[in-house]
């Protein structure tokens, strides 16, 4: 078997914040009725988390669940376990109107860390990233310059960004430019 490799294979950059590609991350897109008990149990079994409310993200390391829209969740699991977790989930959801798909290899994940992490992302997305408006436990889907992206805070100084794998190179270059030394704005 060939060895799976993430889009940029752990590329990194140090500027006013550290940008790194996180490597392989198991991801399952789950669509269905989020108030359904069977779906909630499937999410609990896969991640140990409850179904998140509007724009909530319960993420711990490479496991968690994020609210993507009123009928869609993004389930994060370790890459090596994604096939087994997906099979268990599909089995559990058999009788309900729901759909779970492995999208791990269609995505790229970046981590922005450092005191200026919020500022780096704030240059690229039309989102209020101030501490009053955006906190750990929240997810925001938006755009990063010209491509779609989603992001959440792991802690006060660490952001994780998810984008399409086909746009990984573009997003990495964007983040590098936004993190150039001397480019602090000082807003957040």
């Amino acid at each position, binding site marked *: 078997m060939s060895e799976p490799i993430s889009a940029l294979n752990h590329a990194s950059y140090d500027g006013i914040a550290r940008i790194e590609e996180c490597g392989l991350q198991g991801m399952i897109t789950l669509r269905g009725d989020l108030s359904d008990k069977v779906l909630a149990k499937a999410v609990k079994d896969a991640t140990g988390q409850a179904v998140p409310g509007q*724009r909530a993200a319960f993420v711990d390391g490479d496991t968690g669940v994020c609210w*993507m*829209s009123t009928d869609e969740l993004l389930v994060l699991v370790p890459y090596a376990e994604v096939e087994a977790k997906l099979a268990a989930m599909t089995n559990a959801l058999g009788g309900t109107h729901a759909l779970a798909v492995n999208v791990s290899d269609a995505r790229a994940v970046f981590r922005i860390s450092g005191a200026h992490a919020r500022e780096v992302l704030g240059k690229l997305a039309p989102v209020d990233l101030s501490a009053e408006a955006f906190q750990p436990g929240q997810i925001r889907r938006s755009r990063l310059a010209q491509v*779609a992206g989603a992001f959440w805070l792991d802690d006060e100084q660490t952001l994780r960004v998810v984008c399409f794998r086909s746009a990984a190179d573009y997003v990495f270059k964007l983040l590098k430019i936004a993190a150039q030394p001397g480019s602090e704005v000082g807003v957040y």
Partner: protein
Amino acid sequence: MLILNCPYCGVDAEETELAAGGEAHLKRFGPGSSDDEFHDYLFMRENPKGVHFERWRHANGCGKWFHAARCTQTLEVFGTYSAQTSEPPQAIKDAISARRPGWTWRDLS
């Protein structure tokens, strides 16, 4: 800059996160309708200076369609509401009446 509140994800999304979807509350005429009805459905759009109802999609966001009521003259937004309706809810009509007494739009007022 137009800022609309997405009724599905609750985000105050600005224009570049949204995709415009044209006029709201169109009644479709398809097979079995007269040529005049089909012509009007296909081509005859409102182009008001003032109160207008539109469809928008939160394209760079939750991806959901929704409705917005706004003023084309001042860009004032009266409110946004669910896509799963064929006419604006009373609360939206009241909000418009409070700001634009005597407004009309197609057969609404």
